[in-house]
């Protein structure tokens, strides 16, 4: 199949690549960019394990063609740590509050939460639950994911941190 040239930014770095028109963004990231942090959990855009940030929006990268993305700016879980190598408040929050178990949904969940907190820096519990409802988790029952996002919201907002996971 003929390939097309794309030029975009991934995790702050300019990237040029050749892709088939039908190559999905998730496969481009995982197989061409070797960014395997984003995962595939369904094939129907339900589970959110492949969620990345695309031009300031959360997208499920299994439903975006890479060929559409020239000029785009993409951020994945691999681009979440701070420039000095320390963890982002969300990454820290997920660990502190025991917001993950098998870890498979975690990158997508963190990327979704990242955008959620950009849109709403101090969400209520209900807003968090609604905000991550496009991301499925089979392990945690979400309760500690909610706490992890609250932890990050508090830390990013300079509010004293609540107590750790029980």
């Amino acid at each position, binding site marked *: 199949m003929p390939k097309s040239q794309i030029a975009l930014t991934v995790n702050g770095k300019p990237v040029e690549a050749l892709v*088939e028109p*039908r*190559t999905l963004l998730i*496969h481009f990231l*995982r*197989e061409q960019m*070797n*960014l*395997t*942090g*984003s*995962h595939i*959990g*369904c*094939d*129907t855009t*339900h*589970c959110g*394990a492949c969620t990345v940030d695309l031009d300031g929006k959360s997208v499920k990268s299994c439903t975006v063609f890479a060929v559409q993305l020239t000029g785009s700016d993409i951020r*994945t*879980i*691999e681009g*979440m*740590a701070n420039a000095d190598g320390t*963890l982002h408040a969300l*990454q820290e929050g*997920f*660990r*502190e509050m*025991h917001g*993950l*178990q*098998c*870890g*498979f*949904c*975690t*990158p997508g969940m*963190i990327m979704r939460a990242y955008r959620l907190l950009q849109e709403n820096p101090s969400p209520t519990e209900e807003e*968090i*639950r*609604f905000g*991550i*409802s*496009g*991301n*499925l*988790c*089979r*392990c*945690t*029952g*979400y*309760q*500690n*994911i*909610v706490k992890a996002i609250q932890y990050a919201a508090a830390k990013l907002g300079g509010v004293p941190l609540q107590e*750790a*996971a*029980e």
Partner: protein
Amino acid sequence: MNDMTPTSAERAEKLQGMGCKRKRVEDIRFIQGKGNYVDDLKLPGMLYGDFTRSPHAHARIKKIDPSKAKAVPGVLAVLTAADLKPLSLHYMPTLAGDVAAVLAEEKVLYQNQEVAFVIAEDRYVAADATDLVEVEYEGLPVVIDPFKAMAKDAPVLREDIKDKTDGAHGSRKHYNHIFAWEMGDKDGTDAAFRKAEVTVKEVISYQRVHPCPLETCQCVASFDKIKGELTIWGTFQAPHVIRTVASLISKIPEHKIHVIAPDIGGGFGNKVGAYPGYICAIVASIVTGRPVKWVEDRIENLSTTAFARDYHMTAEIAATKDGRVTGLRVHTLADHGAFDACADPSKWPAGFFNIVTGSYDFPVAHVSVDGVYSNKAPGGVAYRCSFRVTEAAYCIERVMDIMALKLGLDPAEFRMKNLIRREQFPYTSALGWEYDSGDYHVALKKAMDTVGYAKLRAEQKAKQEAFRRGETRELMGIGVAFFTEIVGAGPSRNCDILGIAMFDSAEIRIHPTGTAIARLGTKSQGQGHETTYAQIIASEIGLPADNITVEEGNTDTAPYGLGTYGSRSTPVSGAATAMAARKIKAKAQMIAAHLLEVHDDDLEWDVDRFRVRGNPERFKTMTELAWAAYNSVPPGMEPGLEAVSYYDPPNMTYPFGAYICVVDVDVDTGVTKVRRFYALDDCGTRINPMIIEGQIHGGLTEAFGIAMGQEIHYDDEGNVTTASFMDYFLPTAVETPKWETDWTTTPSPHHPIGAKGVGESPNVGGVPCFANAVNDAFKFLGSTHIAMPHDNWRTWMAADKLGLHG
């Protein structure tokens, strides 16, 4: 000692041993996207395999023509049964003593069954080519309803065994019959029912569901022709068993097979068995000489690799008028699908279903199970439970409620009357299990007190009166469930898989500088083993948990183990870990005695050191002893400090719990809101309370999914109608309730650290608790039993049947 010397308590805290909420070691890689899952693996020259599957549930294969698929650029080969048959690989043995087709030969027996395996340079090309394999079918009548499987004129499903009158578990009554199994005292039970003052009988069906971890089943097989060695990376809950099975099937010597289970994205029973994708990837790698990756998609996962439940239980209780149970009788019809691929210990074709007497003191009981074939996917795995334990718990907890209703007793009061009493432990049940320990009345009372049970019942009564007066259209239901699990399979006297006893193992090596590596035969899929096993070792031998690496999932380095499922890691490998640690500690004691020039018996253990009795300032820390083990051991002692333990448990463990749920049901929409869910779990000694709580949250959420909406549904033609996330219910954060957790602690008397296992309890107790809550809402209107799943539509239908819609 001067003031700067840390106290025993301070030193113990630094170890991060058992009982502390140690943060998880695994998280560091997962939160940065640096986990290492199977599909992340990329080997030079790697090929991709994909299946052509049957659109029919039952059909004869007239012809398979792969020529068009083979002609696609990038396709290297297409495997069919004709290619596998000369190698005797078109069928594979199952864990249940049956065989299952790898690629269908003459017939297909369920929708999406594997027919051809396309091997290509690229996963997109492989998928393209699967559509071009031309298969000509002749449709056959299907068996979907298990109650019709043994009809006189039922279609013959398994032609390969239709004339066999004996199966792996005794005689077969019918060509679609797999096995009959029974336990208990039939005559005694019949007599109890004849004498009974009150009896109830109900068909309790537990629908077919699927464990559905977020990561599907997948593998990479790589055969090295020069060395004659096979390496398989895969989503394996039991890597060593996979190695043995792969060796038996492929005839490659077991020492030349390397099985690696990297990080696993959830298992819940789905990843215990061996599936056609694994076999085909291995064959494809042998044929092509290149690594071959197989990754199933979600539809394939939900419709082919395993299922759970599909148990149809006719349950009867006999009781006295004042509410004492006097007998239990259960007959189960078990739908096993097209092949008997249930993942149970060999001698237990219905798993541990004879835990169905539950937490109650039944003087006599009888249980029988008939397994049948149908045109559905094979499997029968324990979806977040020990073998058939959730079926048993759902059955007894529903029918106890039904009996309470008939007796006019409150469900909690009726349970209180019949719970096994503390002084009866160890308790031998009427169906033969020896329950190790329990304090049931305390647990149930604590649960009732915490939720304010009497007040809730008063509120419910007021609401029911308001409903009757037409002032509200909302019903309130209170679900009570008291469950006893049986986990930690299991003792070699009655538990094996393929003839291998179900022990498990741990090997610990202490390095000279006082750090360590532990390797185990289990395999975490999110349970946090890297964190918790290190806590056990830290408490046992006094080295900080942070200085202990835990490694699982590599059959070349780990001692042989049977894997992680049925909540067996803590009861079996956790015990092996403690026992191996104790061997190390015993040797360290001798080294300490030598260095301190005292007798072994003159030493006492103090958190992280041996000290001389009566002279605590003379001591040797474990770190010092680790160094000494490599340079100054007593004369005649071998240097080094390591140990391995293979632990054959003397008994199973029996975690238990009391759950209470409150729901509000809108009778006009069927919408059911979980107002409150309280879970009290007793898993014996608690290793990491944070992880325990996380396990309970997750298990309750899976229970909520099962009870309130999950079903793998087939239409009359055998089409799977729920094989994607569009139709198969997985709760999101919005509908998932908030969980309240609590505990009591009743250690297991036979386990080295008293731990019982916890991961599956919330699923086992949660399902009946939700079901009882929904049923409880309707029972004052004359309803006895509404079947799961309690989705809005079915609940609306139940209300409609009761005439509530005018």
